[in-house]
């Protein structure tokens, strides 16, 4: 059963075997993807034909490596820009939300709290299409009533940002709220009774306490945005984000360039995950 209870050999061996199999299951697709990025072959499959870096740096007609593949590079850049704005915007609003639900009291607070949780139970696809519909309705409204053609209301960069922001902010609010719950209110009270204004108190005391959670939430928001597919699918215009672009390539057959991009993504996200882990360790 647990550590300090003696068990039969078969039981503990069986359990360990299960855990090992689970880890194999967990890592097999990622490890294989990474290995095949370095195979000197036109297809992402075995047999092994020798080690190559051509799928990263190659610049020939047959083997265009990722660093010379303009379409994929463009989509990586678009994803970075989207993730940058989404993480900034959602961290700002999400922190406001955490303060609102943890420190303020107002009528219909419970109702607003449930509305804030709603993006957790609305499938991402539905968020995408409903925002697409609503922006289209707004676009029509502005066109017929004011003769204005507002670019924001058409599928494109900013609509993707807003669509991802709409549910990532909920996650940020929950992460920051969890930290704010542990905050010792006597610290704020001390600052206030020593003559600080509420604004000064928040900047110097509360936000300082929340910093690891806010930075951690920002990293999570960045990752979620960078990898989002479901909501983005309906809002994307001519500038495809990386997941959308990869999806189109995987669907229509693939070359090891996708493996090379995967290697970069696995490396990048692991790095960001470690940064996030570092901040959440700091929290304790």
């Amino acid at each position, binding site marked *: *059963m*647990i*550590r*300090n*209870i003696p068990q039969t050999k078969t039981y503990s061996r069986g*359990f360990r075997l299960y855990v090992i199999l*689970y880890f194999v299951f*967990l890592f097999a*697709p*990622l490890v*294989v*993807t990474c290995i095949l990025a370095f195979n000197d072959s036109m297809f992402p*499959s*075995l*047999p092994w034909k020798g080690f190559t870096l051509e799928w990263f740096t190659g610049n020939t007609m047959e083997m265009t490596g990722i660093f010379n593949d303009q379409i994929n590079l463009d989509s990586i850049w678009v994803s970075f820009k989207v993730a940058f704005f989404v993480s900034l915007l959602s961290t*700002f*609003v999400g922190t*406001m*939300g955490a*303060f*609102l639900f943890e*420190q*303020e*009291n107002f009528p219909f607070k419970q109702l*607003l709290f449930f509305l804030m*949780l*709603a993006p*957790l139970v*609305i*499938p*991402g*696809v*539905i*968020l995408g*299409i*409903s925002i*697409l*519909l*609503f922006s289209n309705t707004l676009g029509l409204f502005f066109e017929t009533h004011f003769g204005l053609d507002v670019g924001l209301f058409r599928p494109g960069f900013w609509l993707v940002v*807003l*669509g991802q*922001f709409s549910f990532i902010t909920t996650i940020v609010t929950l992460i920051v709220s*969890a930290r704010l719950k542990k905050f010792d*209110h006597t610290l704020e009270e001390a600052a*206030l009774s020593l003559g600080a204004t*509420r604004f000064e108190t928040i900047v110097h005391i509360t936000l300082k306490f929340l910093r690891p959670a806010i930075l951690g939430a920002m990293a999570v928001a960045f990752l979620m945005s960078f*990898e989002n*597919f479901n909501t983005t699918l*309906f809002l994307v215009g001519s500038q495809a984000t990386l*997941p959308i672009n990869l*999806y189109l390539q*995987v*669907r229509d057959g693939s070359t090891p360039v996708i493996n090379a991009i*995967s290697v970069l*993504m*696995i490396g990048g*996200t*692991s790095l*960001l*995950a470690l940064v996030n882990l570092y901040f959440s360790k700091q929290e304790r």
Partner: protein
Amino acid sequence: MESGIGHIISQRKGDPMKPGIRWGLVIFITPVLVWLTVLILLPQVDMFIMSIRAKNELGEMVFSIGNFKLFFLEPIYWRTFARTAIFSILVTFLTFLITMPIAFYITKVVSPKFQGFLSVLILMPFWVSELVRVYGWMILLRESGVINHFLIKFGLLNKPIEMLYNDATMIMGLVYTSMLFMLVPLLSALESLDNSFIEAAYDLGGSVWSIATRIVIPHCLPGIVSGSIVVFMLTLGNYLTPNLMGGKNGLWFTEQIYNQFIASFNWNQGSAFGFLLLILSSGIIWMGLKLTKQTLGKVVQ
């Protein structure tokens, strides 16, 4: 919450923020209200309005329940809907069965030395994009894939078989994609379970089965429910995995929605489908909460 700051501020005389309007509240609530109204509430209302409108014979948009009627009249639509719902429940259950022993092993069995390392290791793959993970499975399982290569090399197969594009593979892919969202709440629920309860049960002669069903699972129920809600919702709304790993005849309901929007350009029909999916997702989650006597507010904590 009540003990908070508002109380203190109102006691201070001559506070510039006190009179009339509570500026703190106004500053905090404005962005939140704008976000929730413009990006959540109004789009959902708009989707509902779109779903109850259709073109009449003259090509004008009028009120109609035709979009919903079509859903029930065309077997392909409601069958896909039912299939998606049943498979999502199955995936949620399988995810729980697979991850529960792992969560238990990490929190209770393995020596504390490896605990931190293992829990980081187990969450690591989920930071990687879902697309990369699905792509990894495609490379492994397809006809020219890695698994077929080894099966033939070792003489277990004569010619490669296609392991992609069937329901079993799709379910495996969906389970793989959503394991994280079950593991995290399970790990934190098990961490809060005092070992002495298990020891006591063991000393009193409880079997593994009775300890699991009468001590461990009841204690973890809030975690199980919150994990199940997220897994169910994400599976139901998944487009990528069923599309890339599922069979060509076995559609997922999100694919029907996508087809209505992007291929047929029938936004009214698509809205009706979207609205039905929303009802299904919130309906089953609500039922799950009622059955286990939990509330959404408690579950997300």
